[in-house]
């Protein structure tokens, strides 16, 4: 669905993207992870034809991104970091504008509002919606014309966990419908939960990419087991025979309360590769 090879972009001589390579298959959720200022939004703008790039190759839906026609763009849905809703217009009217632009029947508006859980707010002006509801309205607009490819730029940034879960559910539903989803986030849990593949972006360079579990396993150098005993004591054991017999003893003594392996997370992988945290800002 998307093919990027050696994409470069500079602003006033400063490189913001360098040697960007990745491929996204049909029906895949691809997560681009990186801290604020890493170049995520710039890459989305380039992939959606909003911004020109300096060098490299980008194919979207088997076409060079420069040659996407209006018809091709109708198969793309975009939710930017700012939700871009008409404040004074109701949820229904907000969606009606885009239903008309995309040539979608007005009956679809109610269907989409129901899908994002805003059916009872159809007549509510967007200015009266909470941030989470605006995010869902923005998603409803993206879903309106059933695009094949969806770009979501930090869709859950600053939202409460409940709304975040609702949005995750909606994203997974779209994946089930066969949509390809390109997602940017600095929330590694979100990426781990939703994405088939991720790329870690730091200062305009992809430092690692692949399936989230495989990426985490690749950097599992420490291989520690964390144990919590009924006495309240915590222990950390290495992966070896000694640890196995120790655990066996603790189990037979009945004093072992919890046991966890401690694989690295995407956050710790990013920290190891870049020395920076994903939530860090420039």
């Amino acid at each position, binding site marked *: 669905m998307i093919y990027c090879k050696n994409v470069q972009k500079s602003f006033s001589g400063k490189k913001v993207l360098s040697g960007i390579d990745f491929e996204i298959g049909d029906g895949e959720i691809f997560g681009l992870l990186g801290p604020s200022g890493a170049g995520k939004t710039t890459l989305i703008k380039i992939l*959606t034809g*909003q911004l020109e790039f300096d060098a490299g190759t980008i194919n979207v839906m088997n076409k060079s991104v420069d040659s996407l026609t*209006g018809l091709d*763009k*109708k198969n*793309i849905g*975009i939710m*930017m970091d*700012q*939700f*871009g*809703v*008409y*404040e*004074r*217009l109701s949820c229904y*009217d907000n969606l009606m*504008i*885009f239903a*008309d*632009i*995309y040539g979608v029947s007005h009956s679809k508006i109610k269907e989409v509002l129901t899908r994002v859980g805003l059916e009872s707010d159809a007549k509510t*002006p967007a200015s009266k919606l909470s941030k989470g509801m605006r995010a869902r309205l923005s998603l409803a*607009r993206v879903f309106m014309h059933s695009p094949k490819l969806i770009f979501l730029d930090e869709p859950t940034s600053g939202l409460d966990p409940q709304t975040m879960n609702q949005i995750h559910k909606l994203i997974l539903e779209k994946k089930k419908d066969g949509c390809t989803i390109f997602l940017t986030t600095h929330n590694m849990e979100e990426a781990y939960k939703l994405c088939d593949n991720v790329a870690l972006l730091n200062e305009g360079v992809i430092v690692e990419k692949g399936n989230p579990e495989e990426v985490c396993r690749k950097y599992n150098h420490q291989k520690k087991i964390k144990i919590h005993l009924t006495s309240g004591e915590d222990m950390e054991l290495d992966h070896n025979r000694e640890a196995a017999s120790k655990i066996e003893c603790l189990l037979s003594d009945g004093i072992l309360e919890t046991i966890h392996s401690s694989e690295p997370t995407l956050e710790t992988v990013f920290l190891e590769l870049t020395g920076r945290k994903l939530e860090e800002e420039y």
Partner: protein
Amino acid sequence: MNNSKINNILIIIKKQLIDTFKNKTVLIQFIMFPMLTVIFEHAIKINDMPEHFFTNLFSVMYIGMAPLTSVASIIAEEKEHNTLRVLIMANVKPVQYLLGVCIYVWTICMMGAGVIATGLDSSDIPFYMLVMAIGFAISALTGACIGLYAKNQMAATSAVMPVMVVFAFLPMLSMFNDNIKKIAKFFYTEQLKRLLDEMTFDGMKTSTGVILAVNAVLMVLLFLGLFKKKGLE
């Protein structure tokens, strides 16, 4: 222009129509001067006052304020709230958007002018509407230039104020001061006021036509330059 392009322009006009009734700042621009004109023409009668004094005065202020502030504010607000980018991403072309906004504002202003024209002799109405149509078109284009230039509503308001003072108030002030008149004559609003005072093209000076044409051409060039340089970003 194919159906899709016309459809997008009509959608923008429809959106503006829904939005205007909920946007008091823009709505007041459209109805204030027609209302003031009707009230003043009926309420104030002074001996030796020129015929249709308030109609002409407020009409020129209407030309210099309403389309200019409305178009600039609509574009700047859409930029600020990111809705413009969403429209462009939905494959509405910048030209279609700008045409939609300008046509909408021009049409609403013409309706306002129609209300003002109810106080005129029926034989004067076509001339009056033609003069207003020219004025609204140049002002809407000026508003579009400010909208293209401004990054947000605050910047648009700051840019609109001095331009509006020049176009809307100089023709009024020129009635009281000859020096101001010498400057004001170079602006289209002053020339349109002179046409409205005469209410006929008969005896129209060549300079009036030239100044109107130069104002319009300059505005078109400024618009094209800004559009080429900044687009709708």
